[in-house]
C-alpha cells in the first residue's frame, strides 16, 4: 500500500473495491482508476503500441498517452479508456490492453527485437516486398501485434441524449481562471455555461497546495462552485469535455452522465451531446506539462512532476518510495516540495538549468536533498524504474537509486480548441511554447491557456476578461470579492533533448515514436511537420500528441537546423478529446438512423402479405404473394394478368405531388415544362416533360388543371424533392415577379391506381352518384368529387396501358379508401399489385422511368422529341438544341425481343451489331429495363440503341459477358402491348 495516512480529496469513509486484470483491490470514493492503482502500488498498466514495452501511468489527466484500459466487460466494454480520467466506482472492472497472453508476460514484446524494422515509416518501407505479401501476410500480422484496445463487436446497449444551450459566455475549464471568470460573469447576470471534464471544480487547484485568501485553493474552488450552482443564470456542466469549435460560435461538448456509476439506471442516457452557441467563450483549459526526452523515459516509474503532485495532494497516493525530480522549470521544485511534505524520500533534484533560483530551494536543501544543477538524467534503468543515470555539470556519470522519477519539461498551454477554425499558434520565447494570438471569433484564452502560468495571474485574468465581456454586453460587473494568491515564479528553460543516452528515448509514448525516428524522418526529407506526423505517426491516436507534439517539433527543428517558430505547427482538429461514436449518433440509430416513410395503405398491405421494397425512404409494396405461389415471378405474373384482364389496385401515393396556384401558374409551368401547359383545359390532364438547364431530361409526370389558376403536378417518386427545389428556384430566383405559389402536397394525398378493364365498374360501385362515362370523364380528364364527405380527385390516367384511374383522398383516409375499393371490387376479383407488376406493365407499354430518366438522355433519346415546344421558351430549350444532343446517331429508345422464345435479356447489357467483335468501338447502346412479359409470354426489354427507330426489325447481339452471355434479339417499337393505345381510351 502506498496510500498516505492522511490528506487528499478522497472520502476515506467510502471504501470501494475494483478489479484490474482480475485482481481485486481497494480504493476510495474520489479516486480515479489511476490513483487507485497508484495507491495499490501497481506500476505496470499497459503495453506500448508498437514495441509492447511495459508502460506505467505518465500523467494524471486527459492527456494520458500510456494508461489506456478497457473499462467494463461484454457489450458495455469501452476500450482505450484513460485510467487517469475514469472515476472509480464500486465494482469497477478494468483490463489492460495490447498484451498477449498477459500484461506481465507479453510475448509480443519480441517486437522490440525487431525494432530496426519498425522505425519511422516502417509501413512504407520494410514490408513493401513482395507486393502480394502486403495484404495477406504483413498487414494482418502487424495489425494483430500493434494496436490499442479491441471493440466488443456487440451492439451498444446504452442510450445517448443530445441537448442545445445558448449563452452569453461559455467558460471552458473550471480551474482558477475559469471559476474567477464564471463568478464575475454570473454575478453580473450573464447567461453562463461553464464546462469542465473533471467531477470536482478547481482544475490545478486540486493538485497543488497553493492558497487563495489564506485557504487551500480547493476550498475556494468549492465555495466558488457552490455560489455558481446557486445562480439561475449559470449552467454548470461537470464531467463535460468541450471537443470542438465550429462556425457561428458553436461548440460541441460531451457530458458523461453515468460513466462514474456502477450501472446505468434503466433508460437513463449514458452521455449527452451538447451543442452550445455562445456569444463569447473563455478558453480556461490550463496547460499540460511536457515530459523530457532521455533514455528509458517511458519506463513505469517515470511520471510528469505535476502528476506526482496530483497523486500526492489530491489522492493521497504516493507513486513511489524514493524519488528523483528531473526538471527544467520551477514547477519541478513545487513537486519536490510536495514529495517532502508527503514524506516520500527525495533522493535528488536534477535541474538542467545552471543556476535556478527558486524560493523553495532553502527548504529543500534543508531537508537534506541532493541538488544537482546543470545536470540531466541521461537514462532510466529497470523494467520498473530502479535507478537513473545522471550526467552532472562536469559530464560525470552517477547512478541514483529510485523507483519514481518526476519529470518537468515546462508547460504547454492547452490551445487545441483555439486552432479548430484554422488559427495558427504563435511561438512564445518566454514560456517556450505556443500560444494563440488570433483565436476564433468570440473566444479569448485566459490564465495558463494564455501562457500566464501563475495562480494570481490566472485569477486576475479570469475576473478581468469576464468583466470586459460583461460590459461589452451592457452589464456592470461587480468586482469579485478579492482573490489573493501568491504570484509564484514559473521560469522555464527548455531542454528538448538530454544529449547522449544509451536506451530508447521516446517522444510520443502512445505511438512509440523515438528521438531517432524524428531524426530519421527529417533525414529522409519529411521535414514539414505535417509530413513528420504522417510518416512517424507522432501526435496521432487517442491523446493527439498532447504530451508529445512540442517535443517532436523541437527535435524536428533541431534536425533541420531551423528555429522552432519556423518549423511550423500542426493545427489541432476536432475532436479535442476522444468522443464515442454512440454519443454523436444519439437517437439516430437502427430504424431511427433514417426515417422510413410509409404509404397510407401500409398497414393494409402488411395484412395482405405484401413484401416491401425501399424506394428512397419509402417502403413500397413490391408484390402480394399468395399461399402456394412458387416464387415472386409467379406472383407478379398473376398480378399483371389480373390488371390486364380484370382490375387491380396499387398505392402510388409516393409519386411527388405539387400544388401550383396563382394567376401566373400557367406561365410558370410553360417555362418549367418543355411542352406547352397553358393551353391545357380545366379538367384535363397532360403528360409533362421537364428538362434541366443543360437540355437533358430532368423528370416527367402529369399536369392537371383544376381551375384557371390552379394546377396539380406529379413527379416521379425519387425526384419529388428535386423538382420541388427546382420549382422554388424558378419562382424565387429566376422569375420572382410571377404571381404564383407552389407547395408540396405529396404527404397530404393518398393516391391509388385502379387499373384494368373492370376499373370503371369498380369505381362506379365506389361512387354510385358520379358519372364515369367516357363522355363525362374521358381519358386524360380529372374530376373532383366528394366521397363520404371528403374531397376526392379522380384522374383518368394510365401507366399500365389499360382503362385506369388514379383516385386520391386526403392521406389520413387512404387506409379507409383502399379497404372501400376492395369491398367495391370484391365481386370483380380486384387484385392488389405492387411496384414489380407496375414496372412490368410500364416496360410492356414502353414508358420511360428511372432507368431511362438517368440524367444522360434527351427528350429525343426517349422518343419524346415531339413534345419540345417551338412556340415558347422553357428551361433547357437552348442547350437541348446543341449539336451533341441532336445528333441522329444518339442511342434512342427501342424495344427488344429475344429471338429464342425462352431467352432472357438483362438490364445493363450492351448492344452489338450481329457478327461484331465485342469491343467498345462496336458498342451501339445498352439495355435500360428488362422484364418477363406475362402478356406476351416472353422476355422483353427497353434499350437505347444508336439510330434505334430506323432499325426496327433488325437483329442485334445483346452482349452480357459478366452474367448470362450473349442473346440474339430483334429490335422493335418500344410499345409491346396495345400500341394504338385504344384500351386506355375505352
Amino acid at each position, binding site marked *: 500500500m502506498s496510500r498516505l495516512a492522511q490528506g487528499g480529496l478522497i472520502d476515506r469513509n467510502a471504501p470501494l473495491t475494483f478489479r484490474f486484470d482480475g485482481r481485486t483491490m481497494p480504493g476510495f470514493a474520489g479516486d480515479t482508476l489511476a490513483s487507485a492503482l497508484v495507491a495499490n502500488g501497481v506500476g505496470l498498466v499497459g503495453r506500448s503500441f508498437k514495441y509492447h514495452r511495459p508502460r506505467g501511468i505518465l500523467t494524471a489527466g486527459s492527456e494520458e498517452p500510456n494508461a489506456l484500459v478497457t473499462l467494463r466487460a461484454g457489450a458495455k466494454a469501452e476500450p482505450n479508456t484513460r485510467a487517469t480520467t475514469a472515476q472509480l466506482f464500486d465494482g469497477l472492472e478494468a483490463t489492460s490492453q495490447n498484451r498477449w497472453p498477459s500484461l506481465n508476460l507479453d510475448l509480443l514484446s519480441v517486437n522490440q527485437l525487431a525494432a530496426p524494422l519498425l522505425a519511422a515509416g516502417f509501413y512504407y518501407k520494410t514490408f513493401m516486398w513482395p507486393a502480394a505479401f502486403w495484404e495477406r501476410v504483413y498487414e494482418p500480422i502487424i495489425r494483430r501485434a500493434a494496436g490499442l484496445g479491441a471493440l466488443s463487436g456487440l451492439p451498444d446497449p446504452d442510450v445517448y441524449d443530445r441537448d442545445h444551450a445558448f449563452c452569453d459566455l461559455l467558460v471552458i475549464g473550471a480551474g482558477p481562471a475559469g471559476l474567477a471568470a464564471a463568478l464575475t460573469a454570473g454575478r453580473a447576470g450573464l447567461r453562463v455555461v461553464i464546462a469542465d471534464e473533471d467531477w470536482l471544480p478547481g482544475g490545478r487547484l486540486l493538485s497543488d497546495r497553493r492558497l487563495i485568501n489564506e485557504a487551500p485553493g480547493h476550498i475556494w474552488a468549492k465555495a466558488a462552485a457552490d455560489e455558481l450552482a446557486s445562480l439561475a443564470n449559470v449552467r454548470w456542466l461537470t464531467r463535460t469535455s468541450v471537443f470542438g469549435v465550429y462556425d*457561428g460560435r458553436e461548440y460541441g461538448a460531451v457530458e458523461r452522465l453515468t460513466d462514474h456509476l456502477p450501472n446505468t439506471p434503466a433508460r437513463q442516457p449514458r452521455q449527452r451531446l451538447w451543442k452550445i452557441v455562445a456569444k463569447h467563450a473563455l478558453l480556461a483549459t490550463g496547460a499540460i506539462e511536457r515530459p523530457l526526452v532521455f533514455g528509458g523515459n517511458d519506463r513505469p516509474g517515470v511520471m510528469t512532476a505535476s502528476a506526482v503532485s496530483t497523486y500526492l495532494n489530491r489522492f493521497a497516493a504516493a507513486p513511489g518510495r524514493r524519488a528523483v525530480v528531473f526538471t527544467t522549470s520551477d514547477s519541478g521544485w513545487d513537486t519536490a516540495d510536495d514529495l517532502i511534505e508527503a514524506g516520500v524520500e527525495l533522493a535528488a533534484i536534477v535541474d538542467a538549468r545552471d543556476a535556478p533560483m527558486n524560493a523553495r530551494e532553502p527548504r529543500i536543501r534543508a531537508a537534506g536533498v541532493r541538488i544537482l544543477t546543470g545536470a540531466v538524467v541521461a537514462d532510466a534503468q529497470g523494467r520498473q524504474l530502479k535507478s537513473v543515470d545522471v550526467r552532472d555539470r562536469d559530464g560525470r556519470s552517477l547512478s541514483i537509486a529510485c523507483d519514481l522519477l518526476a519529470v518537468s519539461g515546462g508547460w504547454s498551454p492547452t490551445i487545441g480548441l483555439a486552432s479548430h477554425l484554422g488559427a495558427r499558434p504563435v511561438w512564445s520565447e518566454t514560456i517556450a511554447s505556443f500560444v494563440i494570438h488570433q483565436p476564433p471569433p468570440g473566444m479569448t484564452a485566459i490564465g495558463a491557456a494564455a501562457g500566464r502560468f501563475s495562480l494570481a495571474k490566472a485569477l486576475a485574468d479570469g475576473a478581468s476578461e469576464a468583466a470586459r465581456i460583461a460590459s461589452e454586453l451592457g452589464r456592470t460587473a461587480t468586482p469579485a470579492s478579492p482573490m489573493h494568491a501568491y504570484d509564484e515564479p514559473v521560469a522555464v528553460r527548455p531542454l528538448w533533448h538530454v544529449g547522449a543516452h544509451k536506451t530508447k528515448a521516446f517522444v510520443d509514448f502512445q505511438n512509440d515514436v523515438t528521438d531517432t525516428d524524428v531524426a530519421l524522418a527529417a533525414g529522409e526529407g519529411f521535414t514539414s511537420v505535417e509530413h513528420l506526423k504522417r510518416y512517424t505517426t507522432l501526435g496521432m491516436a487517442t491523446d493527439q500528441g498532447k504530451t508529445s507534439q512540442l517535443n517532436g517539433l523541437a527535435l524536428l527543428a533541431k534536425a533541420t537546423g531551423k528555429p522552432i517558430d519556423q518549423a511550423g505547427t500542426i493545427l489541432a482538429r476536432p475532436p479535442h478529446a476522444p468522443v464515442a461514436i454512440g454519443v454523436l449518433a444519439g437517437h439516430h440509430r437502427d430504424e431511427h438512423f433514417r426515417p422510413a416513410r410509409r404509404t397510407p395503405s401500409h398497414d393494409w398491405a402488411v395484412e395482405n402479405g405484401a413484401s416491401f421494397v425501399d424506394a428512397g425512404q419509402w417502403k413500397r409494396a413490391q408484390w402480394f404473394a399468395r399461399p402456394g405461389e412458387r416464387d415472386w415471378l409467379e406472383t407478379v405474373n398473376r398480378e399483371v394478368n389480373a390488371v390486364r384482364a380484370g382490375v387491380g389496385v396499387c398505392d402510388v401515393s409516393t409519386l411527388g405531388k405539387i400544388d401550383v396556384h396563382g394567376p401566373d401558374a400557367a406561365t410558370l409551368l410553360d417555362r418549367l415544362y418543355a411542352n406547352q401547359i397553358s393551353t391545357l383545359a380545366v379538367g384535363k390532364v397532360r403528360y409533362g416533360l421537364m428538362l434541366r*438547364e443543360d437540355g437533358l431530361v430532368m423528370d416527367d409526370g402529369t399536369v392537371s388543371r383544376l381551375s384557371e389558376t390552379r394546377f396539380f403536378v406529379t413527379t416521379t417518386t425519387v425526384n419529388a424533392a428535386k423538382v420541388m*427545389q427546382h420549382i*422554388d*428556384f424558378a419562382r*424565387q*430566383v*429566376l422569375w*420572382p415577379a410571377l404571381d404564383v405559389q407552389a407547395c408540396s402536397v405529396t404527404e397530404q394525398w393518398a393516391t391509388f391506381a385502379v387499373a384494368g378493364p373492370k376499373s370503371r365498374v369498380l369505381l362506379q360501385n365506389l361512387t354510385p352518384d358520379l358519372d364515369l362515362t367516357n363522355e363525362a370523364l374521358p381519358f386524360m380528364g380529372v374530376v373532383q368529387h366528394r366521397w363520404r364527405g371528403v374531397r376526392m380527385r379522380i384522374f383518368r390516367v394510365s401507366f399500365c396501358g389499360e382503362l385506369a384511374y388514379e383516385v386520391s383522398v386526403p392521406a389520413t383516409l387512404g387506409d379507409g379508401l383502399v379497404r372501400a375499393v376492395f369491398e367495391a371490387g370484391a365481386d370483380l376479383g380486384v387484385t392488389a399489385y405492387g411496384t414489380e407488376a407496375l414496372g412490368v406493365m410500364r416496360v410492356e407499354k414502353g414508358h420511360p422511368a428511372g432507368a431511362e430518366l438517368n440524367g444522360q438522355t434527351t427528350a429525343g433519346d426517349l422518343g419524346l422529341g415531339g413534345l419540345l415546344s417551338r412556340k415558347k421558351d422553357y428551361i433547357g430549350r437552348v*442547350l437541348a438544341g446543341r449539336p451533341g444532343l441532336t445528333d441522329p446517331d444518339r442511342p434512342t429508345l427501342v424495344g427488344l425481343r429475344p429471338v429464342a422464345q425462352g431467352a432472357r435479356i438483362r438490364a445493363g447489357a450492351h448492344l452489338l451489331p450481329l457478327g461484331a467483335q465485342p469491343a467498345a468501338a462496336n458498342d451501339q447502346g445498352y439495355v435500360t429495363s428488362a422484364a418477363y412479359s406475362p402478356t406476351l409470354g416472353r422476355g422483353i426489354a427497353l434499350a437505347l440503341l444508336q439510330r434505334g427507330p430506323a432499325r426496327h426489325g433488325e437483329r442485334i447481339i445483346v452482349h452480357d459477358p459478366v452474367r448470362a452471355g450473349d442473346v440474339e434479339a430483334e429490335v422493335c417499337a418500344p410499345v409491346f402491348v396495345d400500341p394504338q393505345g385504344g384500351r386506355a381510351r375505352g
Partner: protein
Amino acid sequence: MFDYVYLRDNLAGLMREHWYHAQGCRNWLVVTRDTRTHEIFDAALAKNAAASEPKL
C-alpha cells in the same frame, strides 16, 4: 448560355451564393459569404435580392 449553365466563379473571398432551406421554409437565399473563413456577411431572400443588382 454555355457560360450560364456550366461556368461558375470560385472566388477566394466574398462570394454571393444561392442557399436553399430544404428542411425548413423552402426559401432560396442569397448569402454573402467569405469562402476563406465561412463568415456570413449578408443573407437575403432571393426573391428580394434578385431585383437588386449584386452589391459586390
